[in-house]
């Protein structure tokens, strides 16, 4: 037996300190990612240039609502209703909502893909579904804030003009439910498309195409079929095929809102189908995102 040789190799202790603070675990990681995504959607915590666009869109959204509130106060003696009902506001300003989703959904996901930070997230105690939930929740909350802020401005305007407070409050609460559905559906569709490409520009263009082209095509077809052909039922069913008209139909039937799409859902059966399809669309986005993130690379 040979004697143990003298140790020559030494691991030098150069003074790195171990982390000995509390380890906060899965829920806290997910919560941090959620607030990071939510702040990122408005460019908070990022450079000034990335704040410009989301803040500008929020500003335009609120400006239109402010004008409506002012009109309500100026014309308070003549009318006791807002120019535009709460539940129709989102549909009317959908171009702004679409641009916001298209611009900010890729911000939320594409950067993680492009700079390969997704594997780093998944090497933490964070499940795939937590990542999806945090991103989905973050963007949906951001959209909800974008849609709610103008409604609150209109509500304050209506109260200042001394419109019946009970009616206004009821209308507002119903419209807020509608904005929740709008926010979740738009965030879901936007994120599914954005998760497919690491290129931000491509993601923006693809999301816009899905929303704007489908809306233009569907509402034109609806108009032609309803007024030129005279088939209101078929026109109503077509509304299922575009996210905006889908949620508008949902609002009309569930929340008894005044729909803005060319044709409302046909009858009660149509209403039920619109509700089911809306929930199915949300579920499908959730399932597709989870499926997408089973694999990290494209």
């Amino acid at each position: 037996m040979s004697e143990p040789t003298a140790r020559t190799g030494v691991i030098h202790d150069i003074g790195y300190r171990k982390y000995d603070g509390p380890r906060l675990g899965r829920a806290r990681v997910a919560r941090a990612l959620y607030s990071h995504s939510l702040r990122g959607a408005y460019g908070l915590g990022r450079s000034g240039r990335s704040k410009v666009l989301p803040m500008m869109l929020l500003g335009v959204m609120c400006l239109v609502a402010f004008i409506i509130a002012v009109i309500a106060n100026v014309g308070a003696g003549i009318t006791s209703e807002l120019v535009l009902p709460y539940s129709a506001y989102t549909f009317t300003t959908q171009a702004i909502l679409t641009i916001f989703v298209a611009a900010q959904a890729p911000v939320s996901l594409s950067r993680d893909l492009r700079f390969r930070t997704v594997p780093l997230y998944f090497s933490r105690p964070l499940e795939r579904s937590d990542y999806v939930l945090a991103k989905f929740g973050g963007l949906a909350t951001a959209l909800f804030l974008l849609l709610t802020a103008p409604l609150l401005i209109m509500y304050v305007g209506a109260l200042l003009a001394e419109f019946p407070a009970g009616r206004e409050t009821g209308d507002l609460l119903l419209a807020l439910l509608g904005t929740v559905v709008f926010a979740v559906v738009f965030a879901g569709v936007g994120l599914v498309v954005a998760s497919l490409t690491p290129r931000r520009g491509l993601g923006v263009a693809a999301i816009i195409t899905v929303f704007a082209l489908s809306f233009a095509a569907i509402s034109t077809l609806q108009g032609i079929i309803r007024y030129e052909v005279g088939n209101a039922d078929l026109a109503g069913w077509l509304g299922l095929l575009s996210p905006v008209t889908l949620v508008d139909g949902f609002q009309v039937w569930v929340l008894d809102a005044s729909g803005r799409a060319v044709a409302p859902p046909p009858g009660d059966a149509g209403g039920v189908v619109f509700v089911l399809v809306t929930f199915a669309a949300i579920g499908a986005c959730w399932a597709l995102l989870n499926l997408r993130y089973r694999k990290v690379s494209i």
Partner: protein
Amino acid sequence: MNGTVVRLTYRALLGGRRAWLLLLMSVLLLAMAVLLRVTVGVDHQITADFLGAVAVAALVPLFGLIVGTGVIGPEIDDGSIVYVLSKPIARPRIILSKFLVAACATVLFAAVPTFVAGLVMSGTASRIALGFGAAALVASVAYSAIFLLLSVVTRHAVVYGLAYALIWEGLLGSFVPGARTLSVQQWSLSLTEAISTRDLVSSDVRLAVAGVLLAVVIVGATWYAGQRLRVLSLAGEE
């Protein structure tokens, strides 16, 4: 023009699956045209409404946006544009090559399907298909030039391009009549109005004015994009 830049741009834009995705949008337009023809039959007013709202107001601007920004935006984004810029090719010539690819792609994928959709729905009657085809053609070229310029000027070209296409032409155009005189869509529709022998569309701009404005925009945007590319500075990721 530079052959190599054209070839590289073409491959970056349409290589792989991307051409199929773009083709899908054109096929969608044609499918809807066929569907309307089969269900509704021939009705020239419907043809005009459909092509005006879906093709000229939505498909062509979106295509111009995707293609016009797609020929140079990604390269500026990931910094690989420097490999092209460091070659002894004049910057305006690079822009001209890229503009050529963008304009051809938009015409091929958006204007030609518009013309074919017009033929499917109305045949050659009253030169409706020809009118809308010509409108889509000039609009394609103009949008390509504008959005190419925009993507040299700003990194958020797609978003600002969208704001123009959706808010200026769509939302403002329907409330503020003045916004309509400064809209590529109205300029190109004046061509439809002039070509088609039936009174189906009305444009807010006279043909001569529209022609001059279109020419100025196309030439001016391409020229200015070349100038801007000469002083392009690459910024880091925001």
